[in-house]
């Protein structure tokens, strides 16, 4: 059971009002979490990562366990606390504004 927290705009787009709980089969990585997320919430396709290259959009960040995982390879196993559901994977819109 993986917990995922979306930014507000994507929660509205996906029509969810709280953190999501996903069942992931196989290794728990950013790739596998996003594969499951996009299959269950297809309106999110293209909003977090590119359709074709599957690369993270430039202003999207992945945080977990007080770490920025955005620059890790997307097939890197996520921290054990995320795998067990003790901590959520945070999908974040990068800070901007003045």
């Amino acid at each position, binding site marked *: 059971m993986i917990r995922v927290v979306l930014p507000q705009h994507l929660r509205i787009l996906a029509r969810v009002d709280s953190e999501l709980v996903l069942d992931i089969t196989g290794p728990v990585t950013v790739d596998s979490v996003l594969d499951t997320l996009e299959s269950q919430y*297809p309106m999110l396709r293209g909003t*977090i990562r590119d*359709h074709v290259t599957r690369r993270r*959009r430039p202003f999207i960040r992945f945080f977990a366990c007080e770490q920025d995982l955005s620059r890790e390879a997307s097939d890197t196993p996520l921290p054990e606390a995320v795998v067990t559901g003790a901590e959520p994977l945070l999908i974040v819109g990068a800070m901007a504004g003045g």
Partner: protein
Amino acid sequence: MNSVRVLVGTRKGAFILTSDGKRKQWTVDGPHFGGWELYHLKGSPADPNRLYASQTSSWFGQVIQRSDDGGKTWNPPGTKPEDLMGSDGMPKGASNMFLYDASAETGRPLTTHQHYDGSQRPWEFKRVWHLEPSLTDPDTVYAGVEDAAIFKSTDGGTTWKELAGLRSAKGQLWQPGAGGMCLHTILINTGQPDRMFVAISAAGSFRSDDAGQTWRPTNKGLMSKYELPDPDADVGHCVHSIAMHPSHPNVLFMQKHWDVLRSDNGGESWQEISGNLPSDFGFPIAVHAHEPNTVYVVPIKSDSEHYPPDGKLRVYRSKVGGNEWEALTKGLPQQDCYVNILRDAMAVDQLDPCGIYFGTTGGQVYGSPDGGDSWTPIVRDLPAVLSVEVQTLP
């Protein structure tokens, strides 16, 4: 009695303004998609309940929204899981997937265009600037995108295919203007639907006579003395907007970066009609619904000062197809006004008398129920307005 529905796209959401045919009392509905940039919304001429919207964000990219009930509810087309996964488990298309056609099937390579520094860059999708529904089929819609290209959907916006022949019209010479290299105008010839026009900043205007398969530049007569080294180059002109009256589809009116122009032969050649305008710089241009020679522009001081001359917001109207213009000021601020009106932010309704509407970067949407003689603000304090379209409903 007829009614009107004004579709307003802003920097922070979409708003739908409705009124009866008198156009005195208005209902404001929104924001829809709050916080997102809504570059454009437009209704299908074949089904007024079918609306398309371009929703974009620097963070989350492009989303296409569709309403089948006149804007009450919206959904990204084809987002059910079964719509996206093929029988082999591989993903199918998606409503926000705009892939430039570089397929072996068509043999079209992913070409390059000029960048600001003179280097060549491959086309890269940024956003949808304009959605143009078919005149006859609610499920067919065209999208004008940045980097400049035109896409077509025949399944209600669920999947998109580039009409890649456009990039063959000297695309290697196109380059972005300050606002990006965007295809912002799509016109479909009412009497000859295979004939289409598009306009691109900063490339110019282009025409297709075979439903978008092949295109050629239609910029003869355009002069860009201070923007291009060759002022009458075949491509490279910064066309801001083009308008057409449905009953005279070979007559086109253009607001260019500088100059207002007219073509009487389907874009084969253009003549300047700026005449007595206080400035011939501006963005939108519109044609009266019932008078094909009555044209509207909103002069802006200059390309370096994007606000009205003298702080006076004036729409200019020509009733003779150009050159002779009159200022329309009744109800518009005539001092201390420094807003801009963007290229897709002016539109007309089909009622009699014809209604004219425009939105400003200051968040006002003004309407005139009498062809421009008098104006009132329908709403004053929206986010900066990007686009205005009007539907006339039975």
